[in-house]
């Protein structure tokens, strides 16, 4: 599955994150900026990758500004951004 249009999800409020997704046919570009990057960057990346795998998305540009969101929130916002970007649930 591919991201077919630009989309956003989430907010910049505490315990939330803001995600922008854009199409890219060639590669996966993932940028994460988090207030808890030192402690939890691996966990945030893992939650993002898990959702991408669930939706079989292997390419696209993804920009994330995280304000300390839990895994369940990261997955929810990723799912919303992907669906808004034209990715269908398989």
């Amino acid at each position, binding site marked *: 599955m591919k991201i077919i249009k630009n989309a956003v999800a989430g907010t910049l409020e505490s*315990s*939330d994150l803001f995600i922008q997704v854009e199409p890219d046919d060639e590669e996966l570009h993932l940028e994460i900026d988090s207030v808890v990057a030192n402690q939890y960057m691996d966990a945030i990346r893992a939650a993002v990758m898990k959702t991408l795998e669930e939706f079989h998305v292997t390419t696209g540009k993804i920009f994330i500004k995280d304000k300390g969101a*839990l895994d*369940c*929130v990261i997955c*929810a*916002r990723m*799912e*919303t951004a992907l*669906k808004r970007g034209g990715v269908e649930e398989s």
Partner: protein
Amino acid sequence: MRRTMLFLPGNTPNMLINGDTLGADTVIFDLEDAVSPDEKDAARILVRNTLKYQAFPNCEIVVRINPTDTEFWKEDLKAVIPLKPDVIMPTKVSGGDMIRQVSAYMAEVEKDSGMEEGTVKILPLIETALGVEKAFDIASSDSRVIGLFLGGEDFTADMHCKRTKEGQEIFYARTRLVCAARACGIEAYDTPFTDVEDMEGLERDTEFAKSLGFAGKAVISPRHVDIVNAVFSPTESEIEYAHDVMDAIEEGKRQGKGVISLRGKMIDAPIVKRAQQVLEMEKAIYGGACR
């Protein structure tokens, strides 16, 4: 026991994930008025994930879904029912048919999810003039219905009158709902007091609601939880009296007495029933008998 029912906006992670630490007996994850139309998809997914990954051991979970005349309500149910929230709150309910329609679709989702039909209950939000007039029809429409819930803001808008702190304009709706609910053996829950700063007004309004027979009250701010909990909790002397009543009943039985009195007054069935209710609340609040 639902002394307090705290509304939490469905698209606000910070409030959802801390829902059961705010002291309310019930939290209501709101997918309706607290969520703008262009964020309905995001809120639905967020609430679903919160139910899936977060435990809420200290409170009951209600999900308020969108009205049945919108495109959202079926998607709401499809997303949350498999996660087994305790209760679904349909909105702008104006008759028993609407409840049966929601219940039938809930049954479909429950079946598809391998759940027993009827697992998730219904608490209808009544907030229109027609809904108030059909309160008994709604209360008796389906076995999932566990109570009636009054929404004062939309109701007064529908009545073309101003919502006031005194609440004269919702007096009829309040008493009608309590009576309909009690007639069906279920509870009624009162509309929130919407001035977040006025604690004295909140206490007065809550005491009045309790005096009419409501079993609890909705709140829109965590700051209101303690006051509403306190008003709907039995007092120390009420608990003491309830224990005395039950002790007197036991003693009377042992002595083979047909008529039992306490402090010079005959104890009849309604007094025993009330005492049992107080002791049930004592157990629910304090985890056991206080004496």
